[in-house]
């Protein structure tokens, strides 16, 4: 069993830095950081910012692996800086860089706009034809635990871009939708509440869509939330082909359920207050 290292140890952070207005090309700068057991890469970056170099730029927010802001390349692997302990991946030296397959805004800050635009293009939301119900819902869409299980893991995606950075297809084909948007296309297409017909399929099955995936599987390996985008893309391919060949029973969105007819309000629950804004 590994001994717990209680004393501080110096780890050299080799950070790839780049300021588009100033630098012609990225350069690597080394910073010596005293590291203690349990310290995360994000904390190491804070140490550098506070004590060694105030000009260093990176993106972060929640510090607990939820927001997906601090995705970066650590020792050549796309990871979340807040979720990675320094001594888990380095003993004396650590290399840091911005996520590949994205333009660099500055230092460790990638421009995620293309990814988010691709994400928007797959319509990552529940779509139904009954517009009135969507805007003024007055019932529930029943979904069984099995229905939920079929897409649940893909809803854990935090859009950090680690899968996009790891994808070898995206490295050559910048117009390829990429693992995250395609996994989200599958997540919503597989949701029984969703009723979108061909619109999402047309985007997901386009010339730079699901069929360009070579199943390298790097996206699933890189995902810090344990999502398996490669699996979602293969399922999406099957779904698209089945829909083209008109195999299977076809997709019908689940029906709306009204309130239970036999239920009675408990006496100690007050009535809802009247609407303050006219509907």
């Amino acid at each position: 069993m590994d001994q717990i290292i209680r004393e501080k140890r110096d780890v050299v952070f080799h950070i790839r830095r780049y300021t588009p207005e100033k630098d012609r090309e990225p350069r690597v700068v080394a910073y010596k950081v005293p590291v203690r057991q349990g310290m995360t890469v994000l904390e190491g970056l804070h140490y550098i910012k506070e004590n060694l170099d105030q000009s260093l730029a990176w993106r972060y927010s929640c510090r607990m692996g939820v927001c997906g802001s601090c995705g970066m390349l650590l020792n050549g692997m796309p990871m979340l800086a807040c979720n990675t302990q320094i001594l888990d991946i380095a003993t004396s030296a650590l290399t840091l860089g911005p996520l590949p397959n994205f333009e660099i805004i500055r230092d460790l800050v990638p421009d995620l706009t293309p990814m988010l635009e691709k994400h928007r293009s797959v319509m990552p939301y529940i779509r139904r034809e009954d517009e009135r119900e969507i805007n003024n819902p007055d019932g529930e869409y029943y979904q069984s635990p099995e229905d939920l299980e079929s897409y649940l893991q893909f809803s854990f995606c935090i859009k950090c871009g680690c899968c996009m950075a790891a994808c070898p297809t995206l490295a050559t084909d910048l117009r390829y939708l990429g693992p995250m948007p395609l996994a989200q296309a599958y997540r919503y297409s597989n949701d029984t509440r969703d009723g979108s017909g061909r619109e999402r399929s047309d985007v997901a099955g386009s010339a730079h869509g699901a069929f360009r995936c070579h199943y390298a599987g790097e996206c699933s390996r890189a995902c810090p939330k344990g999502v398996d985008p490669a699996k979602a893309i293969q399922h999406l391919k099957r779904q698209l082909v089945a829909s083209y060949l008109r195999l299977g029973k076809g997709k019908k969105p689940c029906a709306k359920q009204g309130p239970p007819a036999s239920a009675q309000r408990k006496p100690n629950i007050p009535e809802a207050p009247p609407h303050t804004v006219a509907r």
Partner: protein
Amino acid sequence: MRETKYWTWHMAAGVVIFVLLGLHMTTMHMGGLTGLFVSHPGEESIARVNSQARDGQLLFTAGYIILLGVALYHGLYGLRTILFELTLRPSTEKSVSVVLVILGLAFFGLGAWAAIAAHTAALVGRG
């Protein structure tokens, strides 16, 4: 949905190639063992007499034309995929598709003409 159609046919073409190419290999390289489609057992499978005998069969001519068609489609679609992965401009992608379709049809026409000509020649030689 158009790309879904192309990809589905690409996969289906792969299966057809597997079957027809398997048949071709069996005929050409294992004829001595199986005796299948060998009209002159004393000769090699690839001998001219056996080859001419096969050319005279409609089944073989049709099989070769189908194999040519699916192989061309499978290969050229694969080439198109590789080229598309180089982040081409949409107009260039369209040009690549048009050129590959023209190339494919030209090769198919040439190959089909050769197979039909061999079939006709074999029938004339037999008569």
